[in-house]
């Protein structure tokens, strides 16, 4: 089973994503409520993939992405964004995010995105 780390400051969102992932054969190995914790947990847990919210306190998704890429340049990070955050998503992709999911998201989209990204070597 592929191991996933979920980073989002809203408990509701984390729950929503976890519900989808649990149903579809992924293993959620950790949750982080801000960027700093996301980086720490990435180091501890070494997940196969990270879902990263863009807007978070203490350290944003973009900064966390940067740090994670420094630790592991091959890290697979998917940004979770809202409509209107195009510029930040682009920067995330420039920084090395593999793809992104737009809120509000549908189960199918989430799974498709994760699967495609995991296939990519």
């Amino acid at each position, binding site marked *: 089973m592929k191991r996933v780390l979920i980073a989002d*400051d*809203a*408990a*509701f*969102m984390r*729950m*929503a994503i976890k*519900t989808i992932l649990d149903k579809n054969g992924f293993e959620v190995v950790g949750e982080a*409520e*801000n960027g700093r914790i996301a980086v720490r947990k990435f180091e501890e847990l070494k997940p196969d993939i990270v879902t990263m919210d*863009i*807007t*978070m*306190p*203490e*350290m*944003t998704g*973009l*900064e966390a992405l940067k740090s994670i890429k420094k630790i592991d340049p091959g890290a697979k990070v998917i940004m979770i*964004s*809202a*409509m209107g955050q*195009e*510029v*930040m*998503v*682009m*920067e995330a*992709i*420039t920084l090395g995010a593999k*793809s*992104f999911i*737009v*809120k*509000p*998201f549908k189960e199918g*989209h989430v799974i*498709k*995105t994760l699967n*495609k*990204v995991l*296939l*990519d070597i």
Partner: protein
Amino acid sequence: MSSYYSNEPMLDMFIFETSQLIEQLETSILSSEKSSCYTQSAINEIFRIMHTIKGSSAMMMFENISCLAHAIEDLFYFLREEKPQKVDCAVISDLVLESIDFIKIEIEKVKNGDTVDGKAISLIDNIEVFLSSLKQNNASSASADTKENNDVRKQQYYISPDRANSSVAKNTFKAVIFFEEGCEMENIRAYAIIHHLKELADEVFYTPEDIIDNDNSAQVIRKEGFSIYLKTDCPYEKLHDFFMQTVFLKKLELTQMDNDDELKQICGEKREDSNQNSEEQVLHNGDKEGKSTFNNEIKAASAQQSIINVSVTKLDKLMDLVGEMVIAEAMVVQNPDLKGLQLDNFQKAARQLNKITSEMQDMVMSIRMVPLSASFHKMHRIVRDMCRKLGKEAKLEIIGEETEVDKNIIEHISDPLMHLVRNALDHGIESTEDRQAAGKPQTATITLEAKNAGSDVLIIVKDDGKGLNKEKILEKARKNELMQKAESDMTDKEIYNLIFLPGFSTKDNVTEFSGRGVGMDVVTKNIEAVGGSISVDSTPGNETAITLKIPLTLAIIDGMNIKVGNSRYTIPTISIQESFRPKENDIVSDPDGNEMIMVRGQCYPVIRLHEHFGVKTEIEEFINGILIMVESEEKAFCIFADELLGQQQVVVKTLPNYIKNYKNINGLSGCTLLGDGSISLILDIGELV
């Protein structure tokens, strides 16, 4: 109603988190108001909260909440990024507070399972109008930014740095990509492709060109697809695999061109106004989010402790079980089978068991205990709104907010507190002119104080307003025939406490907030429903203080079991002062036939339980029975019973409705099961007085 997520846990989490965020937001707004404007960290916090609510409510299909949150988010995004100078903070506060109220109402609908159908259109309109006027009034900074954008806009293609002028790459390809419907942000997905293509291709041209800074290009891509012309050394298969990895790819048309004429043609058209800047430059405007550091005191504290959320139903069940356990323990330890036996080891083990069950009880109680902070802080909003509406000035002082009460009780306290605070502002606090004339400080003070007193919690609502008017109260009471005692027999305090009688109000006109004479009555009922009591005291011209006395817990009390005939009763130990066997001549009777006893110079009424409850007993002489002196609300009296049976922790069970409805028995607050299986009725000392 949510059709997407029909499972309860998601809805519960949504309600819980959104309510929490709303409360946090309200506190933030109110404190920003006090310090006259919005700090950068407050703006960030408000932005983030609205962003989260927008996302969650959209997921749950609550469009109206989501749109409203979006409007506020846009407003605060502007405040955050542009940092405008000319801002009317009062208007912002009002807009946000109105939005908070709207969301609160909608959340209530969600909780009750009603349709979430509130219309936020006019409110959103107001916000948008305000935002555009804000943009206009602060126009100078905005225009500079757009100029910057225009200069950089030209960039639309990429040339690998080491192959500046002519490319010797072998293959020329054209790719047209269509994305799946509804995948959103197609322009960004297109950008992602271009970004990753850098590693494979040397020259890349694409159309539409403005994917980076024009979100409308997403529309173009949806209609016409995203076209890429590129030169690369990669073979067809590798390129094909690369494109197929695109998420949400619907259709790919990948053709290898024979020559690069077409590409050169397109290139030539655009090269006139090109520059060789890397596409990264465009993005420098974008993300300022990371730069502001966050001082989020409220959230930081909760992030440190490890906390989980537990459903209150589970806690209630746990509480019931602990109660049953106490009864079961008594049934074992006080079993009639063991009567008269010498059981040292058994007693030792029983004591150990008792120790553990006591600890368990204490722990369960403490889990259910919740500090009053939240309830108290809610009052800030009430004070602010009422001051605005009534044109008065007042501040709220909170003392002892860390005092804890049972979760069940918290729910019953909010409304009474609100009413009392409203009353204080409406009736008690004078207008600023009156206060000045009386030499009082212009800003009135309302104090909310909570403290522990024995097994009760005292909550005091005090105001430094004009106090209660004895004369008016007496007049109203006489008019409504509410006088139970002669005026001359009443102490000042008793007169003041008349205001709790139903139908009482000395206000002449009915206002939006008070005057109908139902408020205090409802407050009293609410407090009594949790087993508490309410009283008031006042200094005319200076102060009014209303005190709520609320028991820490209802369920398990220390009781003294007594016997009257064949019946058993339990007296809460907390009320017992002392017990003794009286001598015949200590008892005196007054002309009405009421019996009294003198103890250490004080006179106390005596109640014969067997008479009061109509129970047959052989012990009617005082010297054969026992007198127990009890006290409630500073009034003391003596209860006459046959004998004391022993002290025990009892679980209070309410009297069944059948009995309550059939006959209202004065003096009983509940019943319990004793160790030997018999039923004992718990005396309500307050009522017997």
